[in-house]
């Protein structure tokens, strides 16, 4: 369906069973470089299992995870990763939280710090570099967590409901912010959400998943033009796509 010449990540028949539960039925999926792919589905559909397999935290029962042609199955250190919980460490300043991933693998250099400061200034947190996370709001904390993910220099960013805990207003701001950063940096994003609006607003492509067993039920192209804004939410294409995704999610639950 999609030309494979620019494939960044590929799942080949990756599956995972916990006890009697098929968390993820054998699944194949190819993610193109530079794309923004949303994965939407109710809890228990295997989306987080899929993420943990891609991140290398879980060894799949079968199949391969391939990044740029090289297998990375069950090995860590190849992707950026961000959860709903910001997981900022309270004992480090914003600047030091941004460089946390580096600090966990090697000594942090002045260049690393300079980059952290540059990214923070560029994306609206320059005044908070020496603040501790406890002084920041939820939205600001998620921005810091995203910057921390960004400076890992991984091409593939896994974002697991990063805005799930934010209020609606802040969430919309964060979505627009994320699209701006994504456009600037040209990374590939795999974005988990159970919010259909969010999945459509952000993505180039929507992968719909369903539980029992966790599996992919649809893979939809998103035709909406960029840049997107609040107006996007009212376009006929948006409404049509939303109806389709909702139908898929509900059709499976009946």
């Amino acid at each position, binding site marked *: 369906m999609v030309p494979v010449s620019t494939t960044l990540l590929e799942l080949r028949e990756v599956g995972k069973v916990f006890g009697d539960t098929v968390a993820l039925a054998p699944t194949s999926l190819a993610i193109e470089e530079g794309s923004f792919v949303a994965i939407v589905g109710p809890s228990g559909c295997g989306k987080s299992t899929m993420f943990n397999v891609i991140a290398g935290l879980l060894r799949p029962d079968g199949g391969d995870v391939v990044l740029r042609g090289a297998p990375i199955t069950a090995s860590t250190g190849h992707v950026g990763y961000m959860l709903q919980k910001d*997981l900022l460490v309270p004992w480090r300043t914003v600047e030091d939280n941004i460089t946390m991933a580096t600090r966990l*693998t090697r000594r942090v250099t002045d260049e690393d710090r300079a980059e952290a400061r540059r990214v923070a200034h560029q994306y609206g947190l320059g005044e908070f*570099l020496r603040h501790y996370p406890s002084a920041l709001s939820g939205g600001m904390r998620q921005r810091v967590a995203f910057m921390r993910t960004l400076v890992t220099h991984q091409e593939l960013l896994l974002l697991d409901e990063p805005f799930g805990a934010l209020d609606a207003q802040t969430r919309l701001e964060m979505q627009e912010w994320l699209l701006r950063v994504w456009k600037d940096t040209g990374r590939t994003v795999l974005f988990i959400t159970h919010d259909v609006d969010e999945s459509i607003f952000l993505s180039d492509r929507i992968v719909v998943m369903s539980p029992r067993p966790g599996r992919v039920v649809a893979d939809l192209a998103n035709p909406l033009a960029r840049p997107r804004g609040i107006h996007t939410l009212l376009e006929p294409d948006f409404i049509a796509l939303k109806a389709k995704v909702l139908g898929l999610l509900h059709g499976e639950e009946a």
Partner: protein
Amino acid sequence: MRRRVLLNVGVPILSLLLVLGVWQLVVVGFHVASYIAPRPREAITSVTSQWSTLWPLILGTIRETIYGYLIGAVLGFALGVVMAKIPVVQRLVYPVILVSQAVPVIALAPVLVIILGFGIVPKIVIVTWIVFFPVTVNVLDGLGHVDPDLKNLARVYGASRWRTFVQIEVPASTTPLFSGLKIGAIYAVTGAIIGELAASEGNSLALYQEHANSNLNTAAVYGTTIVMTLIGIAWFLLVVALEVWSTPWQRRSVARRRWRRGAGGAAG
């Protein structure tokens, strides 16, 4: 800032003065005989008038306390880490540690004297014996409650176990670690005094007090007790100061400017 200092330092001092006031009132009001309870001033004078005799003894007690405490804290931390990291060790060692704490230390002291003789060693051992336990238990607890998502995040980044330990697990456990260290600090002097009672051939603060007691010098008995208490409180406050100094994020929202070379402050 000034207001906070007043609140944090002034109020505790006031409460201690209040205790002295009540003491004074009770002794005077109920006509308590001075061989049962002296007035606060008499107790304090009994110390200041004998200062040149007492000071070396106080230094001795402080020395035993510090050595025993440092060994106990390091040992307690190491034991907590090993037990947290190796479950078999935890199952093997935990019962032994519990038994060690169930043994009444006072009963233990003569045994230690038999084994280790007089001198400073048995006193240090007793202090260590008392101090390591709260440290171990709290470190074990702290390391066991580090957010698993945070540890997973470190794994995703490709962090080694050592770096995860140093950068994530230890700092995440500072609060329980300091709880253990503070409990240990307040009990450490008790250990030193018990050791001195059982194992002093020459002079010690504990023997000085016993001597005063047998001479019916009640003021000196009270005075010595106050001195011992003050050593314990001073040590406790020192540990609190260390905690305050090493965990600035618990009180501040903005970090102080760092002195690290090249770290240069951000231009707002």
